[in-house]
């Protein structure tokens, strides 16, 4: 009798662990590990974090793997791992940092270019667009308003 209970308990516990792994965490949506690594330089990455998604047309194709600073030109270097079944990006593709929703998490949106050659591991995406920082936007707006006021 006790054996049955112990068996049930261990089975339940293991089932809970599996459910947590499969249903609660992103184990299934993780990239398969095999992928290729590309970098991009940004003037400002805003609140981008490691593991943020990299999306093409809203579909997650990879994850941000590293964020560092280029010590020569003081720009942020974002390294991302893109799944190998998406090795379709033309070499002149561009990367931009967007925010999902007004206050949501930030992610990298890729937009494909037109070249025939595709991005390979270690390549650098040349065309980038920085994150929109709300404070800069507001101060620019106020500045413009003030300038308009001066003209009148």
């Amino acid at each position, binding site marked *: 009798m006790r054996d049955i209970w*112990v068996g049930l308990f261990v089975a339940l*516990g293991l089932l809970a*662990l599996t459910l947590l792994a499969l249903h*609660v*965490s*992103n184990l299934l*949506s993780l990239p398969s590990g095999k992928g290729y690594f590309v970098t991009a330089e940004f003037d400002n990455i805003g609140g981008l974090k490691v593991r943020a998604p990299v999306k093409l047309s809203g579909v997650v194709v990879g994850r941000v793997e590293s964020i560092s600073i280029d010590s020569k030109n003081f720009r942020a270097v974002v390294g991302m791992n893109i799944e190998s079944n998406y090795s379709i990006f033309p070499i002149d593709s561009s990367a931009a940092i967007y925010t999902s929703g007004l206050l949501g998490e930030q992610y990298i949106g890729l937009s494909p270019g037109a070249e025939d050659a595709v991005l390979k591991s270690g390549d650098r995406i040349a065309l980038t667009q920085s994150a929109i920082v709300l404070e800069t936007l507001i101060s620019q707006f106020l500045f413009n308003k003030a300038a308009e006021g001066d003209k009148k």
Partner: protein
Amino acid sequence: MMRPVLNLLARIGQGVMEALARLGRWFVFMLGLLPALPASLLRPRLIVDQLYQVGVLSLQIILVAGAFVGMVLGLQGYSILATYGSAESLGVVVALSLVRELGPVLTALLFAGRAGSALTAELGLMKSTEQLAGMEMMAVDPLKRVVAPRFWAGVLTMPLLAALFSLVGVLGGYAIGVGLLGVDSGSYWSQIQSQVDFREDIINGVIKSVLFGVVAVWIALFEGYDCVPTAEGVSRATTRTVVNTSLAVLGLDFVMTALMFNV
């Protein structure tokens, strides 16, 4: 004139000596138990019996506590998140706080109260009725026969209980958030899946609970094995088990969180 000062000094000295002696006995206990651990794996029957005592009988309190903690997290999280118009993130709040912190820690605290105290009392009573000494007389090593199976059972039990606690909690949060407060069911799960990382959150939570299991069982067994073999001694040892385990788990949790999650 000098007497109170000398008395105070003597008391401090006594306390230090007692603490050092306890530390020494703890170390001897540890050195004795370590070689007994592999040997006890050869008799799984004893471990299964203890799994019933330590694990199955703790299920009730763990499941009920997990469900209610999840439900409270759902209520409180919703009322705060709703003010910022992001009630959809309720799932993330519930799941992350359970998997990372509340699951392992609360399970360990409940385990100390439910199973740790029982282990201490059992061992203490065995000691005070001289069952342990009797075993030694028959050339049966009580560390191998009595203590080691209980150790394995506790260490195996803890991660399973913590996983059940977290899962039931997430479901409790779901029941409140989706069932009662009208958060969208799809976004509850999809937000959880996009924010909870397998390696970073789930695995670290399991590592925490295994370590808490080792600490909780170790303290419980040591206090029982080391108690003064009288009725009062057993009761004191049981109290010490619960208090020391709770303090150790809470302190350790802070250190491990600081090491694991670079906030």
